């Protein structure tokens, strides 16, 4: 149709800005990753792929990847379990749904740094709410954030505290679309509540679940705030994810070239996740 000519001009400002601010730095990072370059120093050596080779041979990188996966799957599991129970509870409740929704949603919508600080004040040894309570009853608590295993668990719980509301809301929205006639029919056929959940509700949620899981998996490669504030990657490197390691490389050790290489490795991993789930993602996003 004639009135559609020139429509592409509407895309120019936004996509122009994005290519300037996203693609150009991306290319620059790829360029940096080929050099041995320290932030603030004038010396630059071209090293080809040496940064990548060095990184891939490093136990610290594999350790951080492993940590990322453990935290990712741990928190996704908690979030889905809790998120589903909550979504189903809200779905079954007949009133005050909105009030609960807003209250349950608070941890997700407040500034992540602030949310994490709230949790830190609960978990801090001796003076945190949990320790102070336990000490009152003469129970000596573990060092939540100082013990490698507890620190991981705390990071998973912190991530879950912040993201369960998100999963809950997505599942709640998906539950609204489940065919009520089907449920009614199953009930008439004598199916009990659990069988209805298992055979009707969960199968119809599968696309949404896969979509949300893959988004959350990629999020773990993006997010930084919670771990940075809660443990800083510690104790030692117990909670150091790839993102935290990249930050350490780039902004603490100032090895910009190596950090860029690690950034690109992360990008490749994320791209692989997107490629794997692309069909589901495309459909999930198509819902708008």
């Amino acid at each position, binding site marked *: 149709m*004639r009135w559609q*000519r*020139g*429509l592409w*001009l*509407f895309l120019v400002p936004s996509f122009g*800005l994005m290519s300037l*601010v*996203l693609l150009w*730095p*991306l290319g*620059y*990072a790829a360029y*940096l990753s080929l050099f041995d370059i320290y*932030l603030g120093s004038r010396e630059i050596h071209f090293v080809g792929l040496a940064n990548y080779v060095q990184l891939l041979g490093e136990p610290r990188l594999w350790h951080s990847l492993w940590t990322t996966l453990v935290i990712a799957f741990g928190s996704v599991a908690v979030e889905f379990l809790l998120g589903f129970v*909550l979504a189903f*509870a*809200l779905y079954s409740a007949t009133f005050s749904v909105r009030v609960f*929704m*807003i*209250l349950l949603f*608070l*941890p997700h*919508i*407040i500034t*992540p*740094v*602030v*949310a994490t*600080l709230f*949790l*830190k*004040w609960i978990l801090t040894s001796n*003076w945190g*709410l949990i320790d*102070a309570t336990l*000490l009152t009853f003469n129970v000596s608590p573990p060092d939540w954030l100082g013990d490698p295993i507890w620190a991981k668990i705390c990071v998973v719980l912190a991530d879950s*505290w912040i993201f369960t509301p*998100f999963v809950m*809301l*997505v599942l709640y929205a998906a539950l609204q679309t489940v065919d009520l006639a089907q449920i009614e029919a199953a009930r*008439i056929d004598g199916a009990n509540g659990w069988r209805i959940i298992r055979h009707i509700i969960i199968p119809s949620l599968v696309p949404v679940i896969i979509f949300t899981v893959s*988004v959350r998996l*990629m999020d773990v490669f*993006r*997010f930084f*705030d919670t771990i940075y504030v809660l443990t800083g990657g510690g104790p030692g490197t117990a909670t150091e994810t790839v*993102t935290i390691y990249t*930050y350490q490389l780039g902004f603490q050790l100032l090895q*910009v070239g190596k950090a860029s290489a690690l*950034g690109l490795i*992360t*990008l490749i991993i*994320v*791209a692989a996740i*997107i490629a794997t789930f692309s069909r589901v993602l495309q459909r999930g*996003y*198509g*819902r*708008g």
Partner: protein
Amino acid sequence: MKRRPITRVRNQALLLAALAIFTFVNLVPLIWAALTSIKNPADAFTVPPTIIFHPTFEYHRQVWVDRGFVHYLINSLIVSAGTVLISVPIGSLAAYGLSRMPQRRASPILFGLFTVRMFPHMLLAIPFFVMGSFLNMIDTYPLLVLALVAINQPFTIWLMYSFFLDIPRELDEAAAIDGCNLWQTFRIVILPLARPGLTVAALFSLLLSYNEFLFALVLTGIKTKTLPVAIASFGGEDVSDWSISAAGAIGIMLPIVVIMLFVQRHLVRGLTIGAVKG
């Protein structure tokens, strides 16, 4: 199989009680911080925890006035306002363009935007910082605003796209027949109808830029530090400052709660597209 009404009422009561208990436990960290912020340090760290105390708002005053958080609030407002004022207009333009294209041409672009949203931010933070240092733009507002606008675009476009799709194309056609060119159609006919969408997009973008931490941490300095960076570098280490940092944290949270009350009806739409957490 109809259940008897008595069982139903009892089930609902149990359900609501369970929900209420969970919600309360879930919010304990927040409540505890709120209590800490109005306690004297002497009451703030005690074994057993102090529940009854004499409240004081002294620390709320101290954090904003004496510790300079007002300054960081102004920085946050400048950055957030800048981001919203650039992001929403150019995002709406692109979204309108996409919504009026044939679906088969718009879909790949929209999916491309989704992949952009999944960019690991750390990968961008490094070149941003290096380029920013070259251009001498570290610790200035424009650099951070540009970065936030760019990472905000996919979300803004997606959200506005879904609102524009709801406006029937027949209106565009009618406007075209009446002699409007594309720009006039958009500006005079479509945009006024998309006003609720614009408000929602603006509020979500505001939240996103107000909450953003990594780019703010890397690209700001003493002059342009935003609230999340300020509270992160302030908080938690020194136990004697607890009341003050708790007051700061609660203060940072309050505007978000207010915004949330405005956007709550649109949470589902905004969140499935991925607002709030960039």
